[in-house]
């Protein structure tokens, strides 16, 4: 029988990978419906009917259609593994929410900019914007200092238990750690240990298979 859960998107996207990681962690059977960014599948009417903003991923779970990767992640875990949302107490749920917000508002933009500039610009035929890289590296330096202090005091970001707050970092960091700015993590022992543990989780290794370092551009970068 075909899985009840479908994910639409290209798996090398850190946003799609976030959804897949949660499904893998929850042990949920799913079908990845491949889409082509190059062909503009996300702008076609049948996809816009699923997500009017034309972005991936979209998850279909029975009659439910869900878009926005963090909404997808919350739904999957709420349904199948609520402990990863800190469901045990209001305090633990709040701590998971706090560090999920930090991931979304403090981590994503600077880490994403560095990934875009260092890894993607050669494939897109653009030049690196070193000023943007430097500005965002400075932000990440401060961010990872906060993480180092936090992870010196608790095993995971939200407390003593792994949660979506930790997992939500994985997809973008998978690419970020391929850049020379990985040193920002390597230099901070608690952040490094936290990352090393995340990346060997079976679910993380599984989604990494779909996330080639060249983002699926296939050919070598143009010089």
């Amino acid at each position, binding site marked *: 029988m075909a899985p009840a859960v479908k994910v639409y998107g290209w798996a090398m996207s850190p946003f799609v990978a976030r959804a897949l990681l949660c499904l893998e962690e929850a042990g949920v059977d799913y079908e990845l419906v491949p889409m082509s960014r190059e062909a503009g599948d996300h702008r076609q009417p049948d996809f816009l009917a699923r997500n009017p903003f034309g972005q991936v991923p979209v998850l279909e779970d029975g009659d439910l259609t869900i878009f926005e990767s963090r909404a997808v992640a919350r739904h999957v875990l709420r349904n199948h593994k609520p402990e990863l949302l800190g469901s045990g107490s209001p305090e633990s749920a709040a701590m998971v*929410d706090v560090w999920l917000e930090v991931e979304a508002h403090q981590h994503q933009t600077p880490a994403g900019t560095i990934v875009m500039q260092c890894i993607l610009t050669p494939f897109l035929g653009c030049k690196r914007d070193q000023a943007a890289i430097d500005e965002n590296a400075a932000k990440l330096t401060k961010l990872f200092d906060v993480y180092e202090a936090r992870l010196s005091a608790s095993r995971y970001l939200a407390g003593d238990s792994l949660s979506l707050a930790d997992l939500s970092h994985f997809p973008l960091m998978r690419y970020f750690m391929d850049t020379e700015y990985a040193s920002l993590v390597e230099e901070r022992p608690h952040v490094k240990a936290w990352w090393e543990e995340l990346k060997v989780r079976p679910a993380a290794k599984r989604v990494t298979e779909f996330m080639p370092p060249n983002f699926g551009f296939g050919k070598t970068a143009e010089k």
Partner: protein
Amino acid sequence: MAPVKVFGPAASTNVARVLVCLEEVGAEYELVDIDFPGKGHKRPEHLARNPFGQVPAFQDGDLILFESRAIAKYVLRKYKSEQVDLLRESNLEEAAMVDIWTEVEIHQYHPALSPIVLECFIYPTLRGLPTNQRIVDESLVKAKKVLEIYEAHLSKHKYLAGDFVSFADLNHFACTFYLMDATPYASLFNSYPHVKAWWEDLMSRPSMKKLGVHLCNPTRT
């Protein structure tokens, strides 16, 4: 039971996000002045609450939280009742809709509208800078595309997550209030009648009427 504490100025959109939720659930709270104009949010006492030196921060007994949406959800869960359930976490479908449109506010709505508020109100009024009309015009183009989608959605549903008001709707309060009240672009919503009706419905809520007063009187940064 001691009232919960919110640290930061009421005119901050992120502090307002928390306050509107506290008002909606009828919780007793204390708004603590941390001398935001004097950079109190960067001093050690506040950094101990929020290591990123931002507002709001929150305290309930021994629990200290930061990030406005995390605080707001904690409040909405703590004070949830038969009458007031703004997260709907015991219903998978409703909770997912609340989450989706909360994310949409962050990633689509706010990025399109807030530059208009910044250029037309915040920068001129609080920093004495001129309006960059190019940025305003670019943002208006983006805002119209987003509002078209909201219009289609709100033609089918009374509120963003369905036929019930939720956290998703409340998250739109401060940014929209500033657009309506403090910029020349209130008429933007006239082309989107369902969006306009949704906004007017929200603004009729006591929580929003009460907090709108604070948004009209921001302190200088």
